[in-house]
């Protein structure tokens, strides 16, 4: 399909505002009379609250109010359960325990908010917070996942007999049969740990209750303004029309800003109503480490069954998943892990057993990848080990097991995060693998370059990893499009935007239908007053779901335009074309009318609008996919390990993506680059270190290492292939998380390859230079490093 706007490298509509500092972020909101909040947070991971002494803080000059859970009286209530377990899955156990606006009676993780101080300034609020004295009775702490499920473990929730948050079992075929038929069984145990999302902008909420208009306006760093609007209205006893939630520009979302209903999101609007004053709270970086959700800790015991010629017959995975102290977000992450643990491979027998575990650590909700990187890491590790055992070339083993193009749509028979069976809509995997192989020069590297560099004493290795990414799940999104008499086009959608380029990619879809310049299309996203139906920006669904709704609404407006223009120009619709902001007769281009003039005619001041028609050139449409669209891609890298410092240098980094129709390659590449940087962090730098008492030991950017330009590859080469999704008219698939998902798997493979002579077997992630050193030392090599080479 040839497009005029879609698929073009168009510079982003939003960038002039962002780059010149004109874009509104939550902390830019400043309202006369606004008060500021600071929280007293728990120093303990698990403790009973014996007493809270707030009198000194209340007396502190400039303090307006101090609230504890007790002070909230009957209005104290835990947050809503946001995502239920899949009703389509039999035998699921799910113990719902939710976070509350302020801790009552007990704290469940370090950093949990206990007291809110409202003051004239944040400085005063922070000083007064220091005056609060909380007496605790420390309780035994649950940190380790395996110990947490032991019979003698202390319990996170007193009213539960164990720390079991959830249990679910999923299967396809019969693993035991596959096992009996297999020539080779490999069994491994893997430990994956937590990392933070570390958005550049921390969270923040400004709430303004206007007593006279009885209206609540909330500026919130949320990825899902509409669910927050609905939930806030319900909590405060207001109608949904009385609450407006605005998610302005955000400095990154990455999942933790999705519909969590954080304590602060519940509390700040409530405070504003109580005090009849605008209230602001902006999270600081240390709070972010504790009070914002994080992800990825799991322990997997995996078994893979193969034939001698490298055919994977089955996979069995038994895993523990850390959900932190509460589980408001349900089972999204482990469901994704279950869907991705067989990767892009045709594996007919699967048994996946998931146990989600409560721990005295901050809440776990999706972080870019959301359980997918864990699944991909597991299957790709198993593929590496299998290739080694079988004496096969790792890529050959993978290619042998890829789902073939004729098998689509392919039923994984595993329920996914949308509560439907995961159907892989479309794909043609082999050409993507071949393209990546060619781009990185795989064969030439293995045969020539690597031996030559190794002879020079260099530790260079290659990794190449295919992966799938489930994207674009329902339930739905909607878009309203209106042509103004000026000829400019307004677009409004309910999803929020956190840097994805919606202002441009959605505009391209509109331009394609209406023939207007992309810069003449202006988008409002994430303002419930502008559009009040929808779910949010997460799960790589914006382009697919809201993008498809945009296409539907633009098509409806186009129909209205053509109908009216046909009448005005006295020409049949099929002879008209929309180009350069006008409708014209295709073979008589001077006979034309501008879209603006048509918009004015569609909204007459006299006469009557014909029965059965609506005024204006406006349409609202929705898109709700029954199934998501699943992208495919390959990452490949060549790395060099410095044997003295254990630092890594990326010599090459390749990604090849098949995400169906590409809306804007510039934006796509930006998404990939950002994702890769997160993936590199997840692989080798970023890890949250909890001690045995549930204290986070690296809650600052001095100790928690995020990837900087120095750790990034000099260049990330991005290739594309397009297999259009048949499940939406755009033919597109999501790509928001793709950059991050396979990196740990690919990196680990490359690392083992670089250090091949040590027969390293990596069973954990993330690693670090220190940890790699330990692993090598533990191999009790008599010598290693440069000495071994000589």
């Amino acid at each position: 399909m040839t497009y005029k706007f879609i698929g073009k490298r168009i510079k982003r509509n939003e960038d002039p505002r962002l780059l010149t500092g004109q874009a509104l972020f939550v902390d830019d909101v400043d309202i006369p009379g606004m008060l500021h909040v600071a929280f007293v947070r728990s120093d303990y991971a698990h403790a009973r609250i014996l007493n809270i002494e707030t009198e000194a803080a209340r007396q502190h000059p400039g303090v307006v109010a101090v609230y504890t859970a007790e002070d909230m009286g009957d209005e104290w209530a835990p947050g809503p359960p946001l995502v239920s377990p899949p009703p389509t899955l039999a035998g699921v156990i799910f113990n719902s325990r939710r976070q509350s606006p302020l801790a009552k009676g007990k704290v469940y993780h370090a950093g949990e908010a206990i007291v809110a101080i409202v003051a004239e300034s944040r400085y005063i609020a922070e000083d007064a917070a220091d005056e609060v004295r909380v007496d605790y009775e420390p309780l035994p702490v649950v940190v380790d996942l395996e110990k947490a499920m032991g019979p003698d473990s202390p319990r996170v929730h007193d009213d539960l007999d164990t720390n079991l948050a959830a249990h679910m079992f999923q299967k396809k075929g019969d693993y035991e049969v596959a096992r009996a038929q297999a020539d080779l069984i490999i069994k491994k145990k893997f430990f994956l740990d937590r990392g933070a999302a570390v958005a550049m902008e921390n969270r923040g909420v400004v709430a303004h209750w206007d007593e006279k208009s009885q209206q609540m306006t909330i500026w919130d760093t949320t990825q899902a303004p509409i669910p927050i609007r609905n939930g806030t209205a319900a909590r405060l006893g207001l109608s949904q029309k009385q609450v407006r939630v605005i998610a302005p520009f955000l400095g990154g979302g990455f999942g933790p800003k999705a519909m969590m209903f954080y304590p602060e999101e519940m509390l700040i609007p409530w405070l504003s109503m109580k005090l009849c004053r605008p209230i602001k709270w902006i999270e600081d970086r240390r709070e972010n480490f504790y009070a914002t959700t994080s992800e990825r800790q799991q322990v997997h015991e995996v078994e893979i069954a193969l034939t001698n010629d490298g055919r994977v017959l089955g996979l069995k995975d038994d895993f523990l998943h850390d959900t932190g102290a509460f589980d408001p977000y349900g089972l999204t992450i482990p469901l994704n892990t279950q869907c991705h643990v067989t990767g892009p491979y045709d594996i007919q027998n699967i048994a996946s057993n998931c146990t989600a575990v409560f721990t005295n650590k901050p809440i776990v909700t999706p972080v870019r990848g959301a359980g997918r990187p864990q699944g991909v890491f597991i299957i790709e590790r198993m593929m590496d080990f299998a290739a080694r055992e079988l004496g096969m070339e790792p890529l050959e083993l993978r290619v042998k097991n890829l789902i073939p193009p004729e098998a689509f749509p392919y039923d994984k028979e595993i329920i996914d995060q949308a509560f439907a069976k995961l159907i892989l809509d479309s794909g043609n995997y082999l050409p993507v693998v071949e393209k990546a192989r060619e781009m990185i020069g795989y064969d030439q590297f293995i045969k020539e370059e690597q031996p030559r560099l190794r002879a020079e004493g260099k530790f260079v290795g290659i990794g190449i990893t295919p992966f799938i990414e489930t994207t674009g799940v329902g339930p739905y999104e909607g878009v309203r499009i209106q042509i103004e008499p000026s000829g400019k086009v307004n677009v409004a959608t309910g999803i929020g935007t956190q840097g994805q380029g919606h202002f441009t990619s959605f505009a391209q879809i509109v331009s394609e239908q209406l023939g207007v310049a992309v810069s003449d299309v202006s988008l409002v996203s994430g303002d419930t007053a502008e559009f009040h139906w929808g779910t949010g920006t997460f799960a790589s669904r914006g382009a697919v779901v809201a993008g498809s709704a945009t296409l539907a609404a633009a098509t409806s407006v186009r129909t209205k335009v053509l109908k009216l223009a046909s009448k005005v120009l006295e020409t049949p619709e099929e002879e008209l074309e929309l180009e350069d902001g006008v409708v014209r007769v295709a073979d008589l281009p001077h006979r034309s009318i501008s879209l603006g003039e048509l918009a004015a005619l569609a909204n007459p001041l006299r006469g009557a609008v014909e029965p059965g028609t609506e005024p204006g050139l406006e349409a609202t449409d929705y898109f709700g996919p029954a199934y998501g669209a699943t992208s495919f891609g390959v990452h490949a890298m060549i790395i060099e390990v410095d044997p003295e410092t254990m630092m890594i240098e990326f010599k090459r980094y390749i990604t090849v993506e098949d995400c169906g129709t590409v809306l804007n390659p510039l934006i796509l590449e930006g998404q990939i680059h950002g994702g890769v940087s997160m993936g590199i962090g997840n692989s080798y730098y970023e890890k949250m270190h909890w001690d045995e008492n549930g204290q986070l030991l690296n809650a600052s950017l001095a100790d928690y290492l995020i990837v900087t330009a120095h750790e990034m590859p000099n260049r990330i080469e991005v290739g594309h292939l397009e297999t259009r999704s048949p499940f939406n008219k755009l033919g597109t698939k999501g790509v928001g998380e793709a950059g991050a998902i396979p990196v740990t798997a690919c990196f680990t493979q490359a690392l083992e390859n670089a250090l091949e002579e040590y027969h390293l077997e990596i069973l954990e992630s993330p690693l670090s230079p220190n940890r790699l050193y330990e692993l090598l030392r533990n191999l009790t090599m008599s010598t290693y490093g440069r000495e071994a080479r000589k």
Partner: protein
Amino acid sequence: MKIEGEYTFTGPREKVWEIIRDPEILATALPGTKKLELVGENEYEGEMQVRIGPVAGVFGGKLIVSNEVAPESLTLTVEGVGKVGFLKGSGDIVLRDQDGNSTLMKYSGEVQIGGKVASVGQRLFDAVSKSMIRQGLGKLNEALRV
């Protein structure tokens, strides 16, 4: 976190014992100690100013001496709470006669920290605690000469 080490005092064991059981001398020896008062048998209350990297604050708390076998060994238990977090620990101290009128102190124990002092200061805590112990023991050794 584990704390372990030894230190040689230039003085006889009885004298060393005497000074480590004297709260006034102990208060001058522990760096940052603002006060240390005997509030019960073998129980002290005090305040200590601590700085660990970017985290600084006053810890108020208790020091309890137990398992006392004079002049040989004792167990110290510390609990402190401040605006920057908490610390909790206990350790065993053993004194042994050495040649030439000197005394060897062996100490070993465990300290748990929480709050800001853990989340921001952890990286430096080990080094800071070692240096505080060294300074403190040095001060006590000086007190021996008086």
